[in-house]
């Protein structure tokens, strides 16, 4: 017992030395009282590293549990993590508070005085200087600073991530390239009774230039890029590339012919996607093809659009198709027009167009949402032949049910390659197919391995974040 008491005193003293400014130094505790709750053994082998694969401003701590964590005295209930923070940080905090207060004041003020602006400029400069000074202030360890708690974890846990923000304007800012020092206390039910670990430091956090967690994605990117370039090169060399026919695509030409015979217009709906959506990009290519045919047959084309940018692009596409067909003069600006960027207002307008213009053919290609069925049923009411294509899975069933031909999912993207019959586009379609074959192959291999419980293969496909 006397031996233990001695040990306790030593440990407590040690803790006191290593934490000169802790708010409730355990050293003040009477050693008689300590005997009631014996301080636990300290955390050992504390190590702190910069957090990997991030933008910096974060560290990761790991340690070995105290001997009294669920074993021995079993009195550790939590670990408290401390970081040594220079007083310069308080200065930063105070400046930050003043700055946001002043900004709020200026924003609320009826008119801003020169005095306010001068104050703001000064304050901003002081704040920047204080931030720049932080690494140097950290270098002064252990002078001009104190230990501050950054977090608590339950007993049994032996790791902690001290993640700060990168914005100096945030209170959680942790500077990069500054010497950080850490310590972990093993805490008992009586928070006063605790044992500090040895101090670990200095350690600096910084941002990485490559996220190794994402390596599987990089491999996939490279493989995909390689396949695409390979097949495009092959296609350019004139290798014959077979692609199976798609009913929906072949129907497009017939439908244009039908419209010409009936002397009724063709309605082309680009959907609700933005110009950057892949479905819309594919749809532009199909629109180009349709517009060219329309120009050749001199049929009318109506393209109501939902998005202003889509309208801009569609105008360009249709215009150059007319140019290609050698009939630039037949192009009318109002072929492509903007309706409104509100889903159902757009639908209401397109419905109206269908029932008034009675198009011979309606083509819906792009992104569609709930309106798909409203459009397709109204089109059926107007007696049109309807061809649809979308990558919105939820809407495919409605198009399948209500339209004459439907391009399912990626068939829409493939359509642009079909229509153009350009070797380059066909080549990339091949690449896509081979990637799919790879998926199947990986699935089969992965399945077998998963069932044999060889997890390493499955782990290859694990992308942490």
């Amino acid at each position: 017992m006397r031996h233990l008491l001695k040990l306790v005193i030593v440990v407590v003293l040690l803790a006191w030395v290593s934490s000169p400014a802790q708010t409730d130094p355990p050293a003040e505790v009477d050693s008689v009282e300590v005997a009631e709750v014996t301080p636990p053994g300290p955390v050992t082998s504390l190590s702190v590293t910069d957090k990997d694969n991030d933008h910096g401003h974060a560290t990761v701590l790991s340690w070995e549990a105290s001997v009294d964590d669920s074993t021995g005295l079993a009195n550790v209930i939590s670990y408290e993590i401390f970081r040594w923070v220079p007083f310069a940080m308080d200065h930063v905090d105070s400046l930050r508070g003043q700055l946001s207060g002043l900004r709020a004041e200026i924003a609320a003020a009826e008119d801003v005085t020169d005095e306010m602006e001068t104050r703001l400029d000064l304050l901003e400069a002081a704040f920047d200087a204080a931030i720049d000074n932080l690494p140097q202030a950290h270098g002064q360890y252990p002078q001009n600073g104190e230990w501050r708690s950054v977090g608590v974890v339950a007993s049994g846990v032996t790791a902690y991530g001290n993640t700060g923000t990168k914005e100096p304007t945030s209170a959680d800012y942790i500077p990069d390239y500054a010497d950080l020092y850490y310590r972990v206390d093993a805490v008992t039910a009586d928070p006063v009774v605790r044992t500090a670990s040895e101090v670990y430091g200095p350690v600096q956090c910084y941002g990485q230039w490559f996220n190794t967690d994402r390596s599987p994605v990089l491999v996939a990117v490279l493989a995909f890029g390689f396949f695409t370039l390979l097949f495009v090169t092959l296609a350019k060399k004139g290798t014959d590339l077979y692609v199976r026919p798609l009913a929906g695509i072949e129907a497009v030409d017939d439908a244009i012919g039908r419209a010409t015979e009936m002397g009724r217009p063709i309605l082309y709906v680009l959907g609700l996607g933005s110009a950057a959506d892949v479905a819309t990009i594919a749809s532009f290519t199909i629109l180009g093809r349709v517009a060219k045919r329309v120009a050749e047959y001199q049929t009318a084309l109506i393209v109501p659009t939902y998005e202003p940018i889509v309208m801009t692009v569609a105008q360009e596409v249709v215009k150059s198709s007319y140019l290609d067909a050698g009939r630039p003069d037949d192009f009318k600006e109002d072929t492509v027009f903007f309706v409104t960027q509100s889903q159902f207002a757009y639908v209401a307008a397109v419905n109206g167009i269908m029932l008034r213009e009675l198009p011979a053919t309606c083509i819906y290609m792009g992104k569609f949402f709930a309106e798909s069925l409203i459009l397709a049923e109204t089109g059926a009411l107007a007696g049109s032949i309807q061809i649809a294509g979308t990558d919105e899975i939820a809407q495919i069933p409605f198009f399948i049910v209500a339209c004459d031909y439907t391009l399912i999912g990626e068939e829409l993207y493939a359509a642009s390659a079909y229509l153009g019959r350009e070797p380059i586009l066909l080549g990339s379609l091949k690449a896509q197919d081979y990637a799919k074959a790879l998926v199947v192959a990986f699935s089969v291999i992965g399945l077998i391995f998963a069932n044999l419980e060889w997890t390493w293969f499955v782990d290859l496909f694990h992308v942490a974040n």
Partner: protein
Amino acid sequence: MKRQFPLFLVFIFGLFMVFQYFVPHETSEWVYEFLLDWILVIGIFALALGIWSLYKVSVDKIKTRKANWGYSYVTLFGLFVMILFGFTSQNGDSWGWYFIFVATVMLTIGMVIQAMVSSGQKGLSLILAGVFLVASVLIGMFDNAWSFHFYTAEGLQNSMFRAFFDHILIPILSTMFSLLAFFIASAAYRAFRARNLLASLLLLAALIVMLRFNPYLSPIFGDYMAKTSNWLMNVPNMAAQRAIVIGIGLGIVATALKVILGIERGYMGKG
């Protein structure tokens, strides 16, 4: 230059976005966040373009006396009145001359449009527009019951703005959406016919799932109907969804790559 430079931009920005995904460093993050913000800002300018196009289409329709041209006045009225509401708001409880003001502004715009579309006699319309304009300016200057708000979003709280939203936009919008209840029935009637194997599968699956949503019918079929349809939604559905998702995912990846490399350039106006 006109076509090559944009393609070059696409390449550069596309490549950057691919690279930044692998670079956690602050600098890359920072540029990334900026680019996303930029896209938002550019999108707002596009909206202005859209409003202009809507205005132009409507006015052209009136001008060329296309079928149903009269309704374009309704569109223009809705457009301008709602914008006006969005930038004004009541100061107290009383509306004062507000509605007269709105009417004079609308008449001003109407007269200007009239002058634009008519081939002869522009003079009278312009004079009237001037008169209404003066009237509305005078009301605006001397009526204190309401005011313009160009720099705080009070217009959005304007009770007329809200009223138009709640009693015009919302009812029409929800009603349009609810048309689907009727159309889903007519589509089911028209298309769910056992013409061939595929159509029969479609029909059968739909029937089973619909039965599952009928608690009154489950006593007849027992629990199995519900469980079968649940299984349909969870298992074959899962498989098909996954096949489509993988396909679409690859398609998007391939198309994105083609766009970055400048292989797919249909969107630039050359199919």
